[in-house]
């Protein structure tokens, strides 16, 4: 009995303290170091923030370079197939241009009318000041079962601050949750930690909660409210962060929300710096 206990303690100690050969550090010393780093990161944010920011910037750049093959090969395949179909596509595009030309006059009239109505309602058109929008490239889009976020190549150097809304083609994508000097992390709408006040087509208010899957959920809807298919969802702007009226997605038959922008297909996004001047952060 005592022999087996000795065996256990020898094997246990050896696993924790063994060094030599390829192992220059013992497991115990590295566990201790990892715990120190972990608690420094959690509690010593002011002290470690600049240091962490530099590490983040460097690692994100290296990640971007290391992921180049995974981006280049699928794109090369797409380019070859699109080159083969260029003639047909040209015909289609010409037809589409004709169609849009006829619609242009109508759109011009409607946008003028829309602006006038907004003036009457004293609301701000969310795209009014284009100089306060920063175009950013997605550096890293690593999918995780637990966190849905992307890294963009704009940081505090370009005026990006925590909490700023991020859009693509004027559709809301998420918000900035971490900023470094040259890069930032954007929490996507489908992340489990994402909560956004929204308005539905019919005027009902709700909270759009990320579910960790592709389709976020609507929570805190009015009592006895039936969510029907194809209702448009906009940011309500009640949090003072997201601009009211920014389109987000549409409800589907399963009661969840189909986002207008596929969170897995982002390559360029825009960060709305307008909110910065309002002093919300």
């Amino acid at each position, binding site marked *: 009995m005592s022999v087996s206990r000795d065996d256990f303690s020898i094997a246990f100690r050896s696993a924790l303290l063994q060094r030599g050969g390829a192992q220059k550090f013992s497991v115990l010393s590295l566990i201790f170091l990892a715990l120190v*780093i972990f608690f420094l990161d*959690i509690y010593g944010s002011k002290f470690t923030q600049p240091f962490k920011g530099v590490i983040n910037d460097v690692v994100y750049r290296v990640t971007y370079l290391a992921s180049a093959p995974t981006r280049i090969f699928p794109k090369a395949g797409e380019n070859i197939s699109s080159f083969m179909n260029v003639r047909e596509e040209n015909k289609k595009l010409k037809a589409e241009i004709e169609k849009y030309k006829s619609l242009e006059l109508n759109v011009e009239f409607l946008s003028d009318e829309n602006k006038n109505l907004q003036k009457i309602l004293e609301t701000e058109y969310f795209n009014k000041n284009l100089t306060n929008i920063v175009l950013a490239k997605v550096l890293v889009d690593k999918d995780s079962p637990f966190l849905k976020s992307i890294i963009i190549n704009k940081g505090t150097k370009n005026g990006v601050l925590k909490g700023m809304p991020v859009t693509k083609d004027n559709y809301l994508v998420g918000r900035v949750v971490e900023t470094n000097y040259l890069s930032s992390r954007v929490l996507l709408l489908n992340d489990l930690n994402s909560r956004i006040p929204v308005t539905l087509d019919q005027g009902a208010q709700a909270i759009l909660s990320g579910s960790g899957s592709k389709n976020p959920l609507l929570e805190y809807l009015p009592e006895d409210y039936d969510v029907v298919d194809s209702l448009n969802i906009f940011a309500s702007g009640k949090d003072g962060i997201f601009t009211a009226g920014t389109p987000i997605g549409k409800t589907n038959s399963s009661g969840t929300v189909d986002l207008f922008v596929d969170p897995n297909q982002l390559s360029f996004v825009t960060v709305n710096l307008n909110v910065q001047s309002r002093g919300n952060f």
Partner: protein
Amino acid sequence: MAKYSIISKLSNGGPLLLLYYLCISEVDTNLEELFEIFTLNFQIILIYFWVIKRPDIMANGHIFLAGLINDVVMGFPLGLSSLSYLIIIFVGTYVRNKSVNTTIASDWFTFFMAMIFSNLLFFSLLNNFSDLAFSLTKIGYNMFFTLFMFPVFWLLFNIYQVTFMTNRDA
């Protein structure tokens, strides 16, 4: 002779390079697009297998560093993945010290224990010391598929070991 040495060094360093690449690149084993709930933690399979079979090619310091890189890329608090990987190393080294001959079944069972300890530490620290929310269902699926896929990678890694790697005693 020199050429042979370079090739053998490369093939012996393959698993470590793969670990670094998985941690630093966009390549992930979150295959939810393929099958709704299919996600697995490939890194811990990789670490556990090579720690019990060839610890000389998986240095603790490298695994620690890979964990730190993984935390930066994934957005977890720094040191969390390193801790989780070090627990895997600890259980793997303990099993190696205690056992003479291992089979796929024994490795599978001990891997299950290592994964439980590692994930328990990972998610309890994440839950208690950060604001990040996570779904227990997703953790369950992730653990199930990681465990389920272990024998497959065990066989593949064994084939790699026999085919490409030189014996440490050679």
